[in-house]
């Protein structure tokens, strides 16, 4: 019933007459009759906007774990941060929402300059000179970084810290089937990656991938990872939490060759996991292998400042089978959103955001550890996320806590030792003392 086609029947008839055709069906004469669908699609007929909104509200209503109903203590790369009205309003402007990739720079300066500003902010966060215009999500950025690292080092062996998000590691495994990369998982000892001292001489790594902080929230010793790279010639890829970066030394300062990260925290809704934002920054040396789009500054014929996608020869549409990445469509709108949100936070707000997350985390963790039979999962220092070992299975606790009004966290699961009793908990700047106190009380009951 709803339609977005403007043509009246008369107009269609007039256009068909112009083409010398009897009917709309005649437009499809090139499609062999035997292949054509002989019946209507077995889908419901069209519906009005109110009907469809009601249907979508039904789906929405069947989700219990929505942040306006369950107070969110889950993180793991997807965070319940504040999204101010100004970010929603600006990022929702239809010029940003309904434009295509900026192929014609004369009429795309808005998106191009916003990406240029985003690239600048990400590069500053990373402490690295170059950032691209975005990738799909944190995991895809990690996959691209590993591809870059293997190409740059010429060695297909990749040492992946067990502290890297389990889903990122699963993605690396998936895509290694095509690239042939050899993945070796390096275990954690008490929350921190235990890089091998030696034994790499016969098969030295081309890439090290480590989280900062890692999946368990622990602040990894990147100096040690860098030392392994210096010894073996591997590239250091750091999967950084960009909010924690407000307080932590930058990946670049630790000597990272590439920083990747999940940028959802900057103005993008939880959205059941997408669309999110893959952050990617690298050292100058790797510029020619940078995946995806890059915006650069230039001038127009009158010498006025202008922006344009550049180093295009790297990209798939020009380099085709020799391209090192196949990325075309990325997550530009999320990158523009991040630029707006970071503009709203500003220099002081990013520090304040990270500080508030860390304070809330400290307060929550201390209170939970005072509960009977609740223990730290590991003891390494954490910043804005932490794991606990519970006396009952974590998935059971999550179910019980939902009844009490909380999304309690993420069960660590089979990827971690005794992970079924491990619960990953994140506290953002949105959590109040009252919410946390109630959460702690509820968790005390849930594990009793």
């Amino acid at each position, binding site marked *: 019933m709803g*339609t977005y086609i403007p043509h009246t029947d008369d107009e269609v008839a007039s256009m068909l007459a112009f083409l010398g055709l009897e009917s709309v069906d005649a437009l499809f004469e090139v499609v062999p009759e035997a292949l054509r669908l002989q019946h209507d699609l077995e889908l419901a007929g069209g519906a009005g906007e109110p009907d469809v909104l009601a249907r979508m509200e039904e789906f929405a209503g069947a989700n219990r774990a929505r942040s306006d109903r369950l107070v969110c203590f889950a993180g793991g790369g*997807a965070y319940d941060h504040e999204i101010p009205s100004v970010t929603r309003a600006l990022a929702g402007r239809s010029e940003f929402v309904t434009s295509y990739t900026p192929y014609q720079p004369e009429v795309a300066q808005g998106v191009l300059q916003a990406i240029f500003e985003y690239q600048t902010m990400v590069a500053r966060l990373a402490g690295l000179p170059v950032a691209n215009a975005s990738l799909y999500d944190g*995991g895809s950025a990690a996959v691209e970084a590993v591809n870059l690292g293997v190409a740059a080092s010429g060695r297909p062996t990749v040492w992946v810290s067990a502290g890297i998000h389990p889903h990122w590691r699963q993605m690396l495994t998936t895509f290694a089937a095509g690239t042939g990369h050899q993945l070796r998982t390096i275990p954690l000892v008490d929350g921190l990656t235990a890089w091998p001292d030696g034994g790499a001489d016969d098969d030295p790594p081309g890439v090290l991938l480590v989280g900062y902080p890692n999946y368990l929230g622990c602040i990894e010793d990147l100096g040690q990872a860098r030392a392994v790279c210096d010894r073996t010639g591997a590239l250091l890829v750091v999967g950084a939490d960009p909010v924690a970066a407000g307080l932590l030394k930058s990946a670049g300062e630790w000597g990272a060759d590439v920083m990747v990260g999940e940028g959802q925290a900057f103005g993008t809704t939880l959205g059941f996991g997408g669309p999110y934002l893959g952050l990617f920054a690298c050292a100058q040396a790797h510029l020619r292998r940078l995946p995806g789009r890059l915006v650069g500054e230039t001038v127009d014929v009158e010498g006025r400042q202008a922006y344009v996608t550049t180093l295009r020869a790297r990209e798939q549409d020009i380099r085709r089978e020799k391209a090192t990445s196949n990325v075309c469509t990325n997550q530009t709108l999320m990158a523009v959103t991040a630029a707006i949100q970071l503009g709203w936070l500003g220099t002081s707000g990013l520090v304040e955001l990270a500080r508030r997350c860390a304070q809330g985390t400290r307060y929550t963790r201390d209170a939970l550890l005072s509960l009977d039979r609740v223990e730290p999962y590991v003891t390494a220092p954490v910043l804005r996320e932490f794991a606990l070992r519970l006396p009952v299975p974590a998935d059971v606790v999550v179910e019980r806590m939902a009844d009490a009004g909380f999304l309690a966290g993420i069960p660590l699961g089979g990827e971690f030792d005794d992970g079924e009793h491990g619960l990953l908990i994140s506290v953002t700047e949105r959590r109040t003392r009252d919410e946390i106190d109630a959460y702690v009380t509820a968790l005390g009951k849930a594990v009793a």
Partner: protein
Amino acid sequence: MSDPTASTVTGAPGGRATSAPLLGRAPEPTLFELSHPGRRAWSFRTTGIPEVELDDLVPDEHRRHQPVPVAEVSERDLVAHFTRLSHRQFSVDLGAYPLGSCTMKYNPKVCDTVAGLPGLAGVHPAAPASLTQGWLALLVELEETLCEITGMAAATLQPAAGAAGELTGLLLMRAWHQAQGSVRTKVIIPDSAHGTNPASVTLGGYQVVTVPSDERGCVDMAALATVLDEDVAGIMLTNPNTLGLFEEDIAAIAAAVHEVGGLLYYDGANLNAILGVVRPGDMGFDIVHMNLHKTFATPHGGGGPGAGPVAVSERLVPFLPGPRPVRAESQNGTPVYEWTTPPLSIGRVHTWHGNALVLARALAYILINGGDGLKKIAEVAVLNANWIRQRLTGTYDVPFDRPCMHEVVLSVRTIKQAHGVRALDVAKRLLEEGFHSPTVYFPLIVDEALMIEPTETESPQTLEALAEALERIADEANSRDEGWMAEFPHGTPVRRVDEARAARTLIPTFDARD
């Protein structure tokens, strides 16, 4: 002069409007230049959580001692800056965007409302299935709907864009052959293919074998026969192809590829042309990716996000990425949804469940249009493209002079030979008229290509205005000297930009300015 308020298509009234010139002619400083020390926009909620010294929160060896210098602006400045930037940006909401291969149709506003529903947008992706039944139900319904539209058995909704879908499809191809105990090395793609195809093939661990197009613009069957052997894992085809032409021999191609044990991959970039008319599954394809941001009207966001679900035939279902949402048996008649991982799954291809809010938008769009409405979309998209083709035949070259599907590839070759005006010049001149330009120089096999895809949402009046503008430009090209045309555009926020300089003296961030 024609009456600007009347349409010459129908004689009926239908207003003309133009988005030219864009506002935003004034250069906009970067946010960093607008920054003033001490200014701020942020505010956070009052939490009542006791303050802790930073020294106590962060181990000293890890602590950043200088804040990340972002920018320091007021909320008012922030709004003005990004609003002025938006005035320097063309978009579908402003006017026609006949960018071939990109399906820049109107993006219904109701879908924005859907993507903002708190019960969808506020859901954490790691919440268990028991707490996210609405999302799982939505995803299952979308999967079933997309399978009906494409004629396939099951689908993964994880891939975040078309290229991600391609690579997923190639990994499915690889896993399937491996399970048959067969080692294959090559994937065939036509010379008219999108650039993502060969790049994806390489990342999938295969070698690209290119097959040429024949004089009718379709896969050269004789050439195909010479490259088909038991090293071939499969073929990637776009149908209609990137010339906007339907591959009429598709059944024979499918038979020949299947004969040597290969699989057929359908690049869904052009699916809009055939909705409800013919289905990839019925053409013999084994793997199909869709671009929801094209066919199903989810907005492109200036270059993303997209969504690139991949649907497969029955024999490939066990290999699909996981976890995938499925409808399980229930005790009391109400369906229950859960996550499962197929037995031979290639694994995860997205950090979470795909670009979920994009998927929700697409489902809403499909529900509004309905099965009947989807077919009408294809019909009018094809009607519009053929109207443009017919109207501009004689004005521009039509390299493949036969009925097209949803887009038409014209060429500026004759004009260029006579007057030196190139496809690029036509594109830039058109910007001045308030239209986005067509895709230029693609597909690569057409000289001076102008690839025009009007989409079904542009009215006959808009088509008329577009055709008139392109006719006027051709007249100018034939009557003015080429230098005159090379000066365009004049009225856009910036004029032609120096792309060579951008690459030569690379300035990828504000800090790289000298």
